């Protein structure tokens, strides 16, 4: 194996492997150092397998709640999380193989092991030393992290992270999920559908705290109706971890209650993989918050060393990391890529209904004292949503009063994750709400609600 490359990438997750493909496309001799599996958390223990489980959950939920109305008679429905889990593993494996294939196709060398940065664009893997002629790219990502200060250290049996939740053979009879961000919301959905008694605990005043308050409110209503217990503005004060369960002491609404569950799923906070990879030796500095310090071109403080993905700063999302990978590859190749608009990265939670957003929330518009107009269209008024019994949700567009600039958009819908891109495209190209309306939307579609919300922001909504 050659020991010299143009570019060496530490980490084969969605940031690193995409960076490698783009480097290879640009004619750079590229290597990826990966200590575990190609595809990283996303493909193996994150985005992909959880979507497979969410699909099982969705189908289960449709059968349970809607089958009769849809004219489908089923016998007794039994749910087996183990089977669903095994299928999710197959999906992950297929995707990981896909990444392997892509590396081969683009002649990217994959070096198994942990890469440790040395001085001067050199990487040590085990006893081998590799040198990068042009650049080293750090893409080591992040990992789950418990809250040891509360006695909730991940023990992998009663206090688990998603790393374990994704491999369970059966769902716990009762589970407390700490953290009601995207991960917590998705696992609450999965566990609930498979019959767990779920309590969702969020320290901030509402679930999905970084989404628009209306999105949070809709999901809170839907989850409560499904029987998921929500404790927002709730603080875990202490935990007693036993062999068969955990008792949590939770302070909420000024009173303390105790909750005993079979398992606790830690869905809050992630640790950055910045230790033991030679950052200090190479002169790569961290920010106060522990991310790798990068400039606008994602260059670190060490010459010829870039950082992308989770370690380079928030939002810690696969699609953000992938784009950074492309931009860094082009920068290394001497191109002048279009800079990333970090204020235009979609955020999606794949629970049912899904929550997707881009840009500013209404609360943020208020804080910034922007002059804005809200346009909103409920899915109860959308034909396609009614046909599919998926009327929980809405499309909300916040536009600037003066020019119609789309300041933010928030969608709660069964397929919000697919609908948000129309608005991502619009914002990226600076279309105003009027251009969104001008594009003819097919009927009947959920996307019609997007056009209607745009119209509503102009006071011209047609169907409400």
């Amino acid at each position, binding site marked *: 194996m050659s020991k010299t490359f143009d570019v060496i990438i530490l980490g084969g997750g969605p940031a690193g492997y995409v960076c490698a493909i783009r480097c290879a496309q640009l004619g750079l001799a590229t290597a990826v150092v990966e200590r575990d599996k190609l595809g990283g958390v996303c493909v193996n223990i994150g985005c992909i397998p959880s979507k497979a489980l969410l699909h099982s959950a969705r189908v289960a939920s449709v059968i349970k709640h809607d089958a009769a109305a849809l004219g489908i008679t089923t016998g007794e429905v039994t749910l087996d999380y183990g089977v669903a889990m095994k299928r999710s593993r197959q999906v992950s494996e297929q995707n990981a193989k896909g990444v392997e294939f892509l590396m081969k196709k683009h002649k990217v060398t994959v070096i198994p092991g942990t890469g440790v940065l040395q001085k001067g664009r050199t990487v040590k893997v085990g006893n081998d030393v590799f040198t990068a002629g042009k650049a080293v790219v750090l893409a080591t990502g992040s990992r789950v992290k418990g809250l040891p200060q509360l006695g909730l250290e991940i023990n992998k049996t009663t206090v688990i992270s998603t790393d374990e939740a994704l491999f369970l053979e059966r769902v716990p009879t009762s589970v407390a999920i700490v953290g009601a961000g995207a991960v917590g919301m998705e696992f609450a959905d999965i566990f609930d559908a498979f019959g767990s008694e779920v309590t969702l605990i969020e320290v901030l005043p509402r679930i999905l705290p970084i989404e628009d308050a209306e999105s949070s409110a809709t999901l809170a209503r839907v989850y409560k109706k499904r029987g998921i217990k929500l404790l927002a503005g709730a603080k875990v004060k202490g935990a007693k971890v036993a062999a068969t369960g955990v008792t949590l002491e939770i302070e909420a609404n000024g009173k303390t209650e105790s909750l005993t569950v079979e398992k606790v799923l830690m869905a809050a906070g992630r640790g950055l993989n910045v230790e033991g990879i030679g950052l200090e030796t190479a002169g790569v500095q961290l920010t106060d918050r522990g991310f790798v310090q990068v400039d606008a071109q994602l260059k670190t403080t060490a010459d010829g060393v870039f950082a992308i993905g989770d370690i380079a700063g928030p939002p810690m999302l696969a699609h953000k990391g992938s784009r950074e990978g492309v931009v860094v590859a082009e920068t290394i190749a001497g191109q002048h890529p279009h800079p990333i608009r970090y204020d235009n990265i979609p955020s999606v939670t794949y629970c049912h209904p899904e929550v997707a957003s881009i840009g500013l929330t209404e609360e943020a518009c208020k804080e910034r004292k922007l002059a804005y107009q809200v346009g909103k269209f409920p899915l109860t008024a959308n034909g396609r949503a009614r046909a599919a019994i998926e009327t929980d949700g809405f499309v909300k567009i916040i536009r600037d009063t003066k*020019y119609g600039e789309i300041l933010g958009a928030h969608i709660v819908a069964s397929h919000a994750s697919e609908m948000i891109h129309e608005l991502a495209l619009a914002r990226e*190209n*600076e279309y*105003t709400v*009027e*251009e969104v309306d001008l594009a003819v939307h097919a009927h009947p579609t959920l996307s019609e609600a997007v056009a209607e919300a745009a119209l509503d922001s102009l006071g011209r909504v047609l169907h409400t």
Partner: protein
Amino acid sequence: MITKVVMEALSPTMEEGRIAQWLKKEGDAVKTGDVLAEVETDKAIMELPARGNGVLRKILVGDGQTTAVGNLVAVIAAAEEDISGVVGQSGQQGQSGQQGPAARAPTPPALTAPSALTAAVGREAEAGGRIKASPLARRMAGEKGVDLHRVEGTGPSGRIIKRDVDTALTALTALTAPPPEAEGWEDVALSQVRKAIARRLTQSLAPIPHFYLTAEIDMERAAEARDALNAAGDTKISFNDIVVKVVAMALRQHRACNAWWQGDAVRYFHDVHIGIAVAIDEGLITPVIHHADRKSLRAIATATRELAERARARKLAPEEYTGSTFSISNLGMFGIDEFTAVINPPEAGILAVGAITPTPVAHGGAVAVRRRMRVTMSCDHRIIDGATGAQFLQTVRRMLEQPLAIVW
């Protein structure tokens, strides 16, 4: 990517520019911000910067040639890029400066800016008149009166995006705003009598109805004061510096003379900014001493020297020769005893200063030879009446004859 280099509006009043000299030659690699050429405008020699990266492939307007603002003068592109399409189109534009701004690409009416606003920093759009701009950028430009033909796009493939319009607006504000220190004025609507006087006088003596007031001022004590000051300090004070200071202080007392004709109003300034006519090779320019009434003699002397030097080198920035509220022209050093100066519109007046000459005069009941200086004030009669001007000159005379007044 092809970047067209156009003659930019480098001063608020510039309509055409002469390429003084190219600092880069064809084949040179250039990047955004590099100075490509020196351009002689109506006021100064300014730098024409590159607005894109690449190779300076073709120069279309050579050293010494003049062309209208907005016309293509050169092309920047990648080394191998085909630029024939762009270069071919340049034949349609007048390169000799014969064609004015009308030669620019057609502009949709909604996007046309008032002519003063078109002085935006920028680049001519695609020759076909099609502008690559985001819908949001178009709306903002339409609303704010920014001509998108003159805005440089920094989006994908040179598309004009919100940020570019914001940048152009900032540049416009800087170009069209009054000099930063010259805030504070009061527009007084014209009375019917004033309007009638204005109309009649304009008809008889268009465009500005001048009248002239001459006074001979005894400069003995001013000369003594100047000698004493120059003996004491290391900054050389000239008679002109003293005149500037005195006129500025007198204007503070006679604000009727510290004004601009605004057509339907007279703008009386609360601040005093004195324009000083400076002869340059090709004519005349008037750098401005801002707040001359509040500046020390030493500060006025230093500023005048420095501005005059740069004026002669034609390196003044626009804000350094605009915004004066009153002007002074001094030909004393050429031995001119007295002359009349032409008003620098929209100002209300200008003071022409002659040489200081030893003259026999009646003094203290006897004939004595004293240093005398004749000044003539040209007044815009639409703003200043005879008595108003005379009272102002009286103050100037009193201060010059009693130069201690400067420190009161």
